[in-house]
């Protein structure tokens, strides 16, 4: 193990490490801790400029309920779920199919198609901005949840195909061969042999895509207008513009907006990291 395990070092080093750890963490998370602190302050504190002194009162419930009653934040969150969940399902379905095709079959254009998916995933997506907005307008999907879902599914298919294809390549190919010898059709092989084995990859991708899409801001800006289909990210920013003197409420809103992906990360940490670090080890 590198660096040297701390248990094997001098006692003084061990002590130092144990003190340094929490201090480093507090400094690292300082901006976030500051927001958490602001989010429970009263409006009186904020107006009198008491940002960092002792809070005159802890307004946890007042502030966090006020965010939902006094602003459309709840509605934005609902939109975010309406966008995120179908995207996760759609991207996983499409990429299971493409990943299977590229992982299992040997055909001339295999590598070419694969590279198109990978390259498309890396382009600066701003280049898609104007045409995708026009396309959404033409399809009647502009400013709707489904317009965002359709785009996100399509774009995420690039990364997901890369992921699924590499995962399927690592499965034992003999299983598929054996099924073919038995005369099982290709669709049944996909459904009964490969899909059950793909569950870990699907789990990893679900958490990743959930986080990516939940946090998307750019496409929300390009493909929506007004509150109808606006997700929490864009909604939070517009709230910040409206609630200038209410930083405690915007802070509470930020914490709420950050919560779903954070929970997702803590609950599915193993899958999340497995997905994110794909390829980081040989």
């Amino acid at each position, binding site marked *: 193990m590198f660096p040297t395990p701390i248990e094997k070092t001098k006692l003084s080093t061990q002590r130092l490490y144990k003190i340094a750890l929490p201090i480093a963490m507090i400094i690292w998370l300082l901006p976030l801790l500051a927001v958490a602190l602001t989010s429970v302050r009263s409006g009186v504190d904020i107006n009198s400029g008491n940002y960092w002194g002792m809070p005159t009162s802890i307004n946890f419930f007042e502030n966090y309920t006020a965010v939902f009653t006094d602003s459309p934040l709840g509605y934005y969150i609902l939109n975010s779920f309406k966008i995120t969940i179908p995207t996760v399902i759609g991207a996983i379905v499409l990429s299971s199919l*493409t990943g299977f095709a590229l992982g299992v079959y040997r055909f001339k254009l295999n590598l070419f198609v694969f590279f198109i998916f990978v390259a498309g995933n890396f382009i600066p997506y701003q280049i898609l901005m104007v045409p995708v907005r026009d396309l959404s307008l033409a399809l009647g999907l502009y400013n709707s949840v489904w317009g965002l879902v359709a785009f996100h599914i*399509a774009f995420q298919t*690039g990364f997901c195909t890369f992921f699924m294809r590499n995962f399927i390549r690592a499965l034992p190919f003999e299983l598929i061969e054996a099924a073919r010898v038995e005369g099982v059709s290709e669709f049944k092989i996909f459904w009964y042999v490969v899909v059950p084995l793909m569950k870990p990859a699907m789990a990893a991708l679900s958490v990743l895509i959930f986080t990516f899409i939940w946090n998307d801001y750019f496409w929300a800006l390009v493909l929506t207008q007004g509150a109808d289909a606006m997700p929490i990210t*864009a909604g939070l920013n517009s709230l910040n513009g409206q609630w200038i003197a209410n930083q405690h409420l915007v802070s509470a809103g930020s914490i709420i907006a950050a919560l779903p992906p954070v929970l997702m990360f803590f609950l599915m*940490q193993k899958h999340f990291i497995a997905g994110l670090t794909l390829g980081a080890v040989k």
Partner: protein
Amino acid sequence: MYSFWKNNQLKLSPWIFLAPGIFMFSLYVIFPIFQSISLSLYQWDGLGVKTYIGADNYIELLDDEYFYTSLKNNVIWLVLYILAVPAGLFAALFLNQTVRGIRIYKSLFFFPFVISQVVVGLVFSWFYDPSNGLLNVILENFGFSPIAILAEEDYATYGIIAAGLWPQTAYCMILYLTGLNSVDPEQIEAGRIDNARGWRMLWYVILPQLKPATFIAVVVTVIGALRSFDLISIMTAGGPWGSSRVLAYYMYEKAFSEYGFRMGYSAAIAVVLLGIMMIYIGLILYRLYRDEKGY
């Protein structure tokens, strides 16, 4: 009919499986790239008639000082954002221990990457706030006068990049933690016998084994730097006086804000950005191709 299927099942199946994915990806990603490239040769306000103007948009770019400001900022982003890679490595080395509670520390350290850039942007705008922000409160305690980082032409971009480094460092850290996990313990032992310690061990024994992690960390960081948009939009909206714009933000302004509705010009900026990115995409694909041939 049935026997045709029977004979050609293996040839046709991959295309049937690929069809929905290829359809969606072409419609929303591949075609739009070419549409944008062609649009960059037109003048268009988004509603009326498109007029073909040849390379005029690009010629105009050459004389546009805001374009150069944005391009310069993109270079600054690229250079400074890369710091996330070594910073992530050191964070990983710091946290690669087995003391009690270390898993919680690792998760907490990773935290900034999971939250939205919108939240990161808001958090850091408040942090930098000249009257009530925590940064200036701390600076004042040390006797410095407060600075409004995001309102200063010379500092705004650096302030935003610092905010961007926060989640990006966390991302690189997790890549390196995974990499460190799979470093061959025998080689470390061998290194220790050869009296390699500390820096020498890191440089000659550990880093070569972390190559795949480093590659991915550099790739995602470069792409993140060139795509940077959210933080700029949230923290400064390109200001003050356009000094913190990057190409991605500038083209958005040209197309959809009160400054713009110039779709063709905006597309031309996007094509320049794509050109820069293609260098990296080419490198990635080349490496992928080499690995594939190694099978």
